[in-house]
């Protein structure tokens, strides 16, 4: 029998618990509202489990420290919000190119720039996909509840290790600061994935020679295994080959193929509502909470409505959205931005897709969604 514990926790606190259970033993960061509780929580928890906490001089340095510690073998977390997330982009690109597992949390607040420090938004959705330059793959997960903060953090670490890939956990000020009931499972029942290690002898080991799943193998640090890593286009030995067209094409397509191979493991979503519906509300993050309340009221009124909550945002789960949208007459996409992920939904379906947007630092309310759907 497993023992779960009922707790009353904040989203950011649950995220810390998830990271510890997932095996994170290193955190480097710089505090920023509304992500500071993660930094605070990791500083309290890590020393108790033999981990290392570093408050760095800024977000660039903390991203670098997290990458470095991961290269040395540890599971690493860093957390920030919009302005800090901008600064971390260069490092995210490096982690992507050098295939370094690391989890980056962005608790979204209102932007642009220092924007609205204490107020929520969903304005970094496209930045999470394309914030750093180059044709890089990325995984982005987005929680809507305190429980999901815990579960998706564990999933982020597992995917990061499995695919050797930076994973972004895109939370927001509402979910991060909200406190609610959570049932924490017995940690021994939680599935944890660790990076795969080579079984080749040191003289045959090439750090970027991939397995059948397109993911290369790690080797134990501080042993006879030679290891070279480089953010230029590189050979399987890890040395620069940035004028070699063939090596470049092979490497960059492989980086993307890793995610394609594990698409089923990455993709996650939830569906709420009746089997037959006229309007499908596609949501992610905090807006899901308002959408679920609206769905209940609308169905009671006789307006058949369902909610598709996207928990994995990138790679965009196009097939899932296409499937659920095909069963609806119309689609509504509420977002706390001026319309970012809606374009992906439009690409996924031929059904008419309308947006419901705000950018004033306030949440989208159930009332707004109800009124909008009534008009549709």
């Amino acid at each position, binding site marked *: 029998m497993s023992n779960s514990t009922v707790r*009353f926790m904040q989203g950011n606190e649950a995220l810390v618990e998830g990271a510890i259970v997932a095996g994170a033993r290193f955190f480097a960061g710089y505090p920023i509202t509304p992500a500071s509780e993660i930094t605070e929580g990791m500083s309290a928890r890590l020393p108790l489990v033999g981990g290392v906490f570093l408050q760095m001089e800024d977000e660039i340095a903390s991203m670098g420290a997290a990458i470095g510690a991961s290269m040395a073998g540890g599971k690493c977390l860093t957390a920030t919000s919009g302005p800090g997330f901008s600064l971390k982009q260069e490092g995210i690109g490096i982690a992507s190119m050098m295939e370094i597992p690391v989890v980056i949390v962005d608790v979204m607040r209102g932007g642009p720039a220092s924007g609205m420090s*204490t107020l929520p938004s969903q304005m970094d959705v496209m930045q999470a996909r394309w914030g750093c330059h180059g044709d890089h793959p990325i995984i982005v997960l987005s929680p809507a509840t305190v429980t999901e903060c815990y579960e998706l953090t564990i999933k982020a670490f597992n995917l990061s290790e499995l695919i050797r890939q930076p994973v972004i956990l895109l939370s927001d000020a509402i979910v991060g600061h909200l406190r609610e009931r959570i049932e924490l499972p017995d940690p021994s029942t939680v599935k944890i994935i660790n990076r795969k290690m080579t079984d080749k002898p040191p003289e045959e080991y090439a750090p970027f020679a991939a397995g059948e799943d397109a993911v290369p193998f790690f080797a134990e640090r501080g042993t006879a295994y030679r290891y070279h890593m480089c953010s230029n286009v590189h050979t399987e030995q890890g040395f620069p080959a940035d004028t070699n067209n063939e090596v470049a094409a092979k490497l960059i397509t492989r980086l993307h193929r890793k995610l394609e191979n594990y698409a089923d493991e990455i993709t996650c979503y939830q569906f709420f509502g009746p089997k037959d519906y006229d309007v499908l509300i596609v949501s992610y993050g905090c807006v899901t909470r308002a959408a679920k309340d609206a769905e209940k009221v609308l169905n009671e009124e006789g307006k058949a409505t369902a909610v598709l909550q996207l928990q994995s945002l990138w790679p965009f789960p196009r097939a899932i959205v296409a499937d659920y949208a095909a069963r609806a007459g119309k689609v509504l996409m509420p977002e706390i931005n001026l319309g970012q992920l809606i374009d992906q939904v439009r690409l996924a379906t031929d059904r008419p897709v309308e947006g419901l947007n705000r950018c004033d630092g306030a949440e989208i309310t159930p009332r707004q969604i109800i009124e909008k759907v009534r008009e549709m």
Partner: protein
Amino acid sequence: MRNEVILSGFGGQGLILAGVLLAEAAVVHEGINATQDQVYGIAARGGECCSEVIVSNEGDINYAKVTTPDIVLAMSQAAFNKYAPRVKEGGIIIIDTVFVEDTSALDGHDCEVIPLPITAISQEKAGRTMLANVTALGAICERTKLIQNQNMIDEILERVPRGTEEINRKAFWGGVEAVQALETGR
């Protein structure tokens, strides 16, 4: 039953903590559902502060912003003017008369106003104004029965720094007794 509560005043009065304690008591000690959220600006101390709590035994709480509160605690004049008029018809407003003198913002509203010198009670019973938030919790629980008094004080004692249990007890029961005295006096 679903109850929406606003605890409002200025930064430094411990209202966010009070909201956390109230909601945690519901979840951990009463086994029902609750959420807590807050609104604050960049400079928290002395600025406007509002802690929002929803307590429900009707399943999930999704959207967790309080729109029309059943219960409002106002511990500053500005907070009273802003939040008290939002109260639901027939709702309850508890005011700290040390800070709230003018209740004209509520003129024409159908609700019950409970005037208590919360900060003065905290000073008198516990020897410090700092525990006004705990006194307010006593008043809220006694008047609304949102959380049973014993569950609330158990929750408070689990969370406060060691060595402060006695003054927290005094502050809490001070709030309870003030409401009882008011009701007896009627």
